[in-house]
């Protein structure tokens, strides 16, 4: 018998807007039932970070890298908030939606392809990160950080970084065979990246190899961009950092689509 199966991945009408709108409407409708808890945790958490590090540590070191320590941490924890509101919800949310709720079975039975599903889900998580990422900065403003026009760029930075981390989380969920596997990624990947991002201490105090390695940490670029948005831009270097975040997002986006296609279509 002749094998008539055409090559996979060839589809008519890729990344259609109605398809992605459908996925987004589902997310937004669901969000209306749990936004309170998300808003609570993403507001209370950075406040605690600021109180603990800003006042606990700030009593020992008043200035770090040329900034007041409270201001240093207040701007740095934007990246933490972005990570926590993108990578984690993407990992767990994706896994729950395909494994336990079987939501993705229902969506893929509709005129929606995996590429559209993954893209819309990542955009939604990125939009949330773009909003909740600002909370630490707002809290820091309350604690005495001076407002600056550059801060208006922070939602965009948080969105771009959030998109990359969302795709990272979706990809991990696509590759993981059980939800327990997430522990490996959280311990071996996210925790070190979180710690050496320059959030709580500047990387300039680390050995040279660690400083170089820091340039491959998207979270570090996010931290630096937010800091420069608040205290003054670094010019071309900041543009390169934004480029690095965009590249991170694009690469993770394709990997996430690949991982989820393998998972959802057999």
């Amino acid at each position, binding site marked *: 018998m002749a094998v008539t199966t055409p090559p996979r991945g060839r589809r008519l009408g890729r990344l259609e807007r109605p398809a992605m709108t459908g996925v987004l409407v589902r997310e937004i409708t669901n969000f209306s039932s749990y936004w309170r808890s998300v808003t609570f945790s993403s507001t209370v958490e950075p406040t605690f970070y600021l109180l603990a590090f800003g006042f606990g540590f700030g009593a020992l070191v008043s200035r770090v890298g040329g900034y007041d320590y409270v201001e240093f941490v207040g701007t740095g924890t934007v990246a933490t908030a972005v990570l926590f509101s993108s990578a984690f919800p993407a990992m767990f949310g994706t896994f729950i939606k395909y494994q336990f709720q*079987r939501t993705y079975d229902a969506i893929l039975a*509709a005129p929606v392809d995996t590429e559209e599903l993954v893209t819309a889900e990542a955009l939604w998580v990125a939009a949330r990160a773009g909003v909740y990422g600002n909370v630490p900065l707002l809290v820091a403003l309350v604690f005495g950080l001076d407002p600056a026009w550059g801060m208006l760029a922070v939602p965009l930075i948080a969105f771009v970084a959030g998109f990359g981390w969302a795709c990272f989380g979706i990809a991990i969920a696509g590759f993981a065979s059980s939800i327990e596997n997430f522990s490996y990624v959280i311990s071996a990947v996210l925790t070190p990246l979180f710690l050496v991002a320059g959030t709580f201490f500047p990387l300039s105090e680390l050995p040279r190899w660690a400083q170089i390695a820091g340039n491959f940490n998207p979270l570090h670029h996010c931290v630096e961009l937010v800091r420069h948005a608040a205290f003054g831009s670094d010019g071309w270097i900041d543009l390169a950092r934004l480029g690095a975040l965009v590249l991170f997002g694009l690469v993770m986006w394709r990997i996430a689509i690949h991982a989820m296609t393998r998972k959802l279509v057999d």
Partner: protein
Amino acid sequence: MRDWHAGTVNAIRLRGVVKRYGSITAVNGLDLDVPEGTCVGLLGPNGAGKSTTMRLLTAQSIADEGEIEVLGFRLPEESKQARAQCGVAPQLDNLDVTLTVEQNLRVFSYLYRVGRAERRDAIERALGIANLADRRDTRVDKLSGGMRRRLLIARSLVHRPRLLLLDEPTVGLDPQVRQELWALIDALRAEGTTILMSTHYIEEAQRLADTVLIMAHGSAVAAGPPAALVAEHAGLEAVEVYGSPEKLAEVEAAAAAAGFRARRTGTSISVLGVEGADGRAPAGERRPTNLEDVFVLLTGEEIA
């Protein structure tokens, strides 16, 4: 009953479809026709390949061999166009449980691209089909199992699909709720919706399907209207004989020698096609043959 030969346009057409998972062949050279405007039942024991067949029709599984056409579209390349005109009610409930009934329908009206102008009517119509208009603001996790299943079917109809795929629509429901869903599916059938329904409940297939396709080990072993299948494979009457295992074995051997087909029914044996054969048939309870006889005869599987 409609004449199952009458439909010349096929809503679904499968030819020589093969789907393997590693060393397991889930679907093995399946041919299937679902003429427009009819209800076809895929009947088979668990593991016969029914659910895989359903997944192939939405391109959530990609066939290794063979041809699949749905509503005139070739799969998997044109699957998206086909899916836009299909409704799917899966075996496993995947409603959004923290949303209300109406919110679930609204979300699917977007996923299935119902136009803004028609959205309101489409949702109302689906609420009517599910008979849940007075529950529109109830969260799904507060609904009974039967209501959830009705909503699941109504959700798949929100965009007025030309073809409805029902995967085990009444599995796990109590008999009364099952009757209720049968009435719902029968009403859709009467309206002319083309339906492909997988089931392992004989009665469900017998009641609802114009044509039944019996599947075993990934391929079709028989196809036709239920009554024709019964007449062809099991005749009109059966004799059911009860007794010790030894006696049943004896009866089975005697029936085979006399040229009758027979099938085991747990504690008894049914000798089939005994109408007009009083002399040669064993003594026992006479009863009309049914689809279950055909199913067991052809699949070798007991009904749970």
